[in-house]
């Protein structure tokens, strides 16, 4: 029997697993009583959590409370309260957001810096940067006041990758072409590695080792993107 996919059961319930991973978990569940129990417990927690809805108080009770309140402005409408409570993240989402935050924090700092330092002469005094390039505009998907405000838009690995590539594309003309080519070649090398791992998983969906390896490879890509974002900050 393969290793227990305990850590992936939550994502399985949330429907966040890729098809191959989902199939693998399902295969395992068919024969593993322990994981079936864990899954049932997790589902029970989810069901109970969903049952914890806000119920408006009985009118007569509310009237009594209302009379004792000096300042009604502190009362938060129920819908607002519900909306606030929906702003929650699963652990993988928080992890992804944390990684994205690193990339974004660097990028945000770089934007702030580029905005204050570029000035009238039009380009930074850096030999590795082309001085004749126009100042790029901020990507629409990153249209938020602070990096923190962008967390909600970065809940997946793919989103982080797409936005980073958008970032790189916009600043391509300002960066040393050789450096851009190097970064892209290395990201492509990681992508190729990830592709090989995915094929291996398709051929052997029971291998938890490959799933872990796949996760490590994606993390590495995020790390390289982070490093590249740092370069962009330094050289523009």
């Amino acid at each position: 029997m393969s290793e227990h996919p305990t850590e992936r059961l939550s994502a399985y319930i949330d429907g966040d697993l890729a098809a191959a991973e989902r199939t693998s978990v399902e295969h395992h569940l068919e024969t593993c009583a322990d994981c079936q129990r864990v899954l049932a417990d997790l589902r029970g927690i989810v069901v109970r959590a969903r049952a914890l809805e806000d119920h408006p108080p009985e009118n007569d009770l509310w009237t009594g409370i209302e009379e004792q309140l000096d300042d009604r402005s502190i009362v938060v409408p129920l819908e607002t309260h519900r909306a606030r409570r929906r702003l929650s993240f699963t652990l993988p989402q928080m992890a992804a957001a944390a990684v994205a935050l690193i990339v974004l924090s660097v990028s945000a700092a770089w934007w702030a810096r580029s905005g204050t330092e570029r000035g009238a002469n039009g380009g930074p005094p850096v030999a590795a940067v082309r001085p004749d390039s126009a100042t790029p505009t901020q990507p629409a998907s990153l249209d938020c006041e602070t990096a923190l405000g962008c967390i909600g838009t970065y809940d997946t690995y793919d989103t982080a990758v797409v936005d980073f590539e958008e970032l790189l594309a916009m600043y391509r003309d300002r960066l040393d072409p050789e450096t851009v080519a190097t970064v892209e070649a290395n990201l492509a090398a990681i992508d190729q590695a990830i592709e090989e791992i995915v094929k291996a998983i398709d051929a052997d969906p029971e291998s938890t080792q490959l799933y872990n390896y796949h996760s490590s490879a994606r993390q590495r890509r995020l790390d390289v993107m982070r490093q590249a974002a740092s370069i962009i900050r330094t050289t523009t």
Partner: protein
Amino acid sequence: MRYLTIAIGFALIIMSPETLRPQAAVDTLLSVGANATVEVENMIGDITISTWDRNAVRVQATGAADVHFDSEDSEVSVEAEMVPDGEGRATDFTLTIPVDANVEVHTIEGRISIEGTTGRIDAQSVKGLIRVNGGRNTIDVGSVEGGIEISGARGRVEAHSVNEFVSLTDVVGDIEATTVNGPVTLERCDTQNLEASSVNGAIVFRGPIHSDGWYSIDTHNGTIDITIPRSANATISAFTYNGEFEADFPVTVTEAEPGKATTITLGSGDAQIELETFNGAILLKRSDR
């Protein structure tokens, strides 16, 4: 006629734009307090930093850029600002700093060499070799197109390249050494926490294994070559998808199913060693020490 040609050639050399602009030469001494931080921002050119037993920073620079200083008791910052006709030309820095000073160095293109400081080291470049000799604190070094060499360090070491090698020798402390396209070599490294990775490159590790240690080594297209002491107590998880696993000593494999890691227990199996390569071999060797 020959003399005339020589004379004209000589005149042309003297009058060339490269030589018409005087090379800025800076040699300044700045006083600082204990545990000061020295920041250097360069664009093109080498940065060489060594230490002395004085509470002062000596800055020597030659090159095309204007050099700006900002000095306070606890911080000295040195920045090269490129002048309009100096684009593409280098400015080289040589700094002598207090032995306990922290160092933050950034350059786009040029070699960085830091020797002897016991303070924190943060050195980043886009292109150019980064070399650190010594160090007794946190050492954080990164480059995109530059190799990294660290030797004789005692402290936490983070060394990240993208397109070049990473080499650590005689390092004691936690280690994180990564690259994408290049080898990672860890010779005589004494660490309890190791993370070493590459995508296209071999990884070599030789050093003691601590019973409470954790060692993670992975590469996609490269060989993992690990030499550990005969006395090591460790559980080794070795995974290769398209490669071979070899040990130069008899090992008892407790699990070796397809798609799973080979697990080997040495002694009491206390330390955790994880070795992963997709297209490479894993070579496990034992040393007498």
